[in-house]
């Protein structure tokens, strides 16, 4: 993975000093809260319902054991002993004191981490495929491109006061495991006639006006990535709406101009910027790629074949052993095919039955750090589904890994199943929320653990947001839940048919909402319709797409 050189370290250290100075001026009353707010947001510091929340960047979701251990230390030293992994592949701490913020950033900088631009109207932490570099179906590891863009976007002088936040995602496979087309810019690295380049999708997003990003450019050469991004951002910075914060995201600009006109403007700006020398040389991309080479034991399988050539194989799943202790179930659900057929990527569930989705204690983080060092070449990934991945695990090590995870409460075999719920912090923490999300997730998780239907339901992505800002991705859930405030009471709308994968679609509302208890019943009712109606091999989403909303409505509102 990427390692800082003295330049990167100096920039992060300078940022710590800058923010320390800004905090001191705020505490001394020399900065007003209005003046301070954008500055603290650009360092990841939000004011929530009960305290400050700090969001730490985990670039493209990749970190090592030492960094995970530091996250544990911070949880204990400055918070209440736990942290919350987010849909942005980051971690958030919910009980931070302003006085400690600069010290936390300094601790992070000591392990090459930061909170730069994890909030605010600027280019945010760049996300990617959680199996990047390990998955069998990629044309390349997308992370070097994400790192190139991370550096370009860090402290960008022109794009730090954008109309609204700006999220970029980079993937490199046809399979989309990162909700690429639901980002402000979604980039897919593709091969064309033996050359790598980038598809640019611009203007996607969730929030109160969900949109799927249209393709703006089918192939941007690798030595023009930064220039093209700069052009796309400049058109947005100049013409994105600033009169209404709810219409300020780039998706509204692209929608109002039309994709064709927006593209024309970007191409014009791009042609101009090509003359300006803003693009790093390809040698810089090559330098970054050097950090992401597979560790050498991973480059050769036992059969001696070249893993890079290996497509996803049926038999590349985990070993088939009959043990009867839950291992098989975990290995079946929580592993993903690796480029090297001797290895898998293992998904660590942060969704125990009845737990808070994405929360991990400091002790659990330390266990993850140890296991990464022992079994996964010192590498971890944070998933947008609020779980953690050990990307490079030898199949022979899986039983021992599973045992260690189970002992630490992280061995739940539910990846992509009903219990693997995405939920935003909701009204338990967030000042924007209209309703609680976490208790709904807990009740649903408990219900389906008790009724035993989870295994029969198979892949079913349930996503819960506590307000229309959609941090819980409810638009993209096979089943989505949106919490609203109805005359002072929490009310929950049910949505069906969303997908954040390569078959991106937006979920539709079933009809009138439900109360806290009713929504749990409603989810079970929808699940039962699927179990009754499904044909061979269909997932919930497939059945919904085939039979439509009517049978679900009939069952829900009979």
């Amino acid at each position: 993975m990427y390692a800082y050189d003295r330049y990167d370290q100096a920039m992060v250290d300078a940022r710590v000093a800058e923010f320390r100075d800004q905090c001191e001026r705020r505490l001394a009353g020399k900065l007003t809260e209005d003046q301070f707010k954008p500055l603290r947001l650009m360092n990841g510091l939000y004011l929530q319902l009960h305290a400050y929340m700090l969001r730490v960047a985990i670039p493209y979701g990749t970190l090592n054991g030492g960094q995970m251990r530091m996250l544990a230390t911070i949880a204990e030293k400055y918070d209440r002993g736990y942290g919350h992994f987010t849909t942005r592949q980051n971690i958030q701490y919910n009980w931070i004191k302003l006085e400690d913020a600069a010290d936390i950033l300094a601790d992070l900088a000591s392990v090459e981490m930061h909170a730069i631009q994890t909030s605010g109207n600027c280019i945010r932490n760049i996300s990617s495929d959680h199996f990047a570099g390990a998955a069998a179906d990629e044309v390349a590891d997308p992370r070097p491109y994400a790192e190139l863009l991370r550096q370009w976007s860090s402290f960008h002088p022109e794009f730090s006061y954008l109309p609204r936040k700006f999220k970029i995602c980079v993937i490199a496979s046809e399979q989309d495991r990162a909700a690429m087309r639901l980002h402000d810019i979604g980039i897919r690295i593709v091969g064309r006639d033996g050359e790598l380049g980038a598809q640019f999708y611009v203007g996607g997003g969730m929030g109160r006006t969900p949109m799927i990003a249209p393709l703006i450019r089918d192939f941007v050469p690798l030595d023009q990535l930064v220039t093209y991004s700069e052009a796309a951002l400049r058109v947005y910075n100049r013409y994105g709406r600033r009169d209404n914060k709810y219409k300020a995201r780039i998706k509204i600009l692209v929608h109002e101009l039309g994709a064709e006109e927006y593209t024309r403007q970007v191409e014009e700006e791009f042609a101009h910027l090509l003359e300006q020398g803003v693009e790093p040389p390809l040698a810089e991309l090559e330098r970054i790629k050097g950090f992401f080479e597979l560790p050498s034991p991973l480059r050769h399988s036992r059969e001696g074949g070249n893993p890079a050539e290996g497509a996803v194989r049926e038999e590349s799943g985990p070993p088939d052993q009959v043990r009867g202790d839950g291992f098989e179930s975990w290995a079946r659900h929580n592993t993903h095919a690796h480029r090297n057929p001797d290895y898998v990527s293992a998904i660590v569930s942060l969704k125990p039955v009845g737990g808070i989705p994405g929360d991990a204690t400091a002790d659990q983080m330390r266990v993850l750090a140890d296991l990464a060092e022992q079994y996964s070449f010192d590498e971890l990934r944070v998933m947008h589904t609020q779980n953690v991945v050990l990307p490079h695990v030898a199949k022979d090590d899986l039983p021992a890994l599973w045992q260690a995870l189970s002992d630490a409460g992280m061995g739940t075999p539910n990846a992509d199943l009903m219990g693997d719920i995405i939920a935003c912090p909701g009204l338990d923490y967030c000042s924007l929320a209209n309703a609680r999300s976490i208790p709904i997730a807990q009740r649903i998780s408990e219900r389906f653990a008790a009724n035993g239907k989870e295994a029969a339901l198979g892949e079913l992505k349930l996503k819960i947001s506590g307000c229309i800002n959609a941090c819980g991705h409810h638009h993209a859930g096979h089943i989505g839940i949106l919490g609203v405030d109805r005359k002072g009471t929490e009310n929950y709308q049910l949505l069906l048919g969303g997908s954040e994968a390569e078959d991106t679609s937006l979920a539709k509302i079933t009809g009138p909402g439900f109360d806290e208890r009713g929504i749990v019943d409603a989810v079970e009712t929808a699940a039962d319709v699927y179990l009754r109606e499904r044909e061979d091999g269909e997932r919930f989403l497939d059945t919904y797409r085939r039979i439509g909303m009517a049978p679900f409505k009939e069952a829900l509102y009979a």
Partner: protein
Amino acid sequence: MPEATTIRLRDDTPCMEPAVTLEAFAEQTNAVAVRIEPGGDARELLAHLDRLARVDIAFPAFTDGRGYSAARILREAGFAGELRAVGDVLVDQLAYMRRCGFDAFAPDAPIDMADAEAAFARFPEVYQSAADPRTPIWALRHGDGDDR
């Protein structure tokens, strides 16, 4: 105009002419100073840059970042006159403004010169090529400067 508090990073004689609006400039072809509001298109000036001594770019609110793009566009087109950030200009944005090509600052509330200098010196290097002469880190890494 709050001349007393203007921070100027140029050595030439300041142009003291009042700035006209973009709209007025289209008709007043003898004006040498123009003021661009956030919604104004800096590219309307590109054909006339050689006779402009100063462009004021207005920041009614520091959170409105359109002026950063306007400044870069003018510098990319070769504008060599004074580029002045006017309005809600605060010490924490000065360094980014300078990187986008501003070389004069007329803040509504005075900025201490020592604070401004500290802000300009805060970051030892830069990650991007912009409208200032600073060498990006990627260039330093690949020969334009030492090698680590």
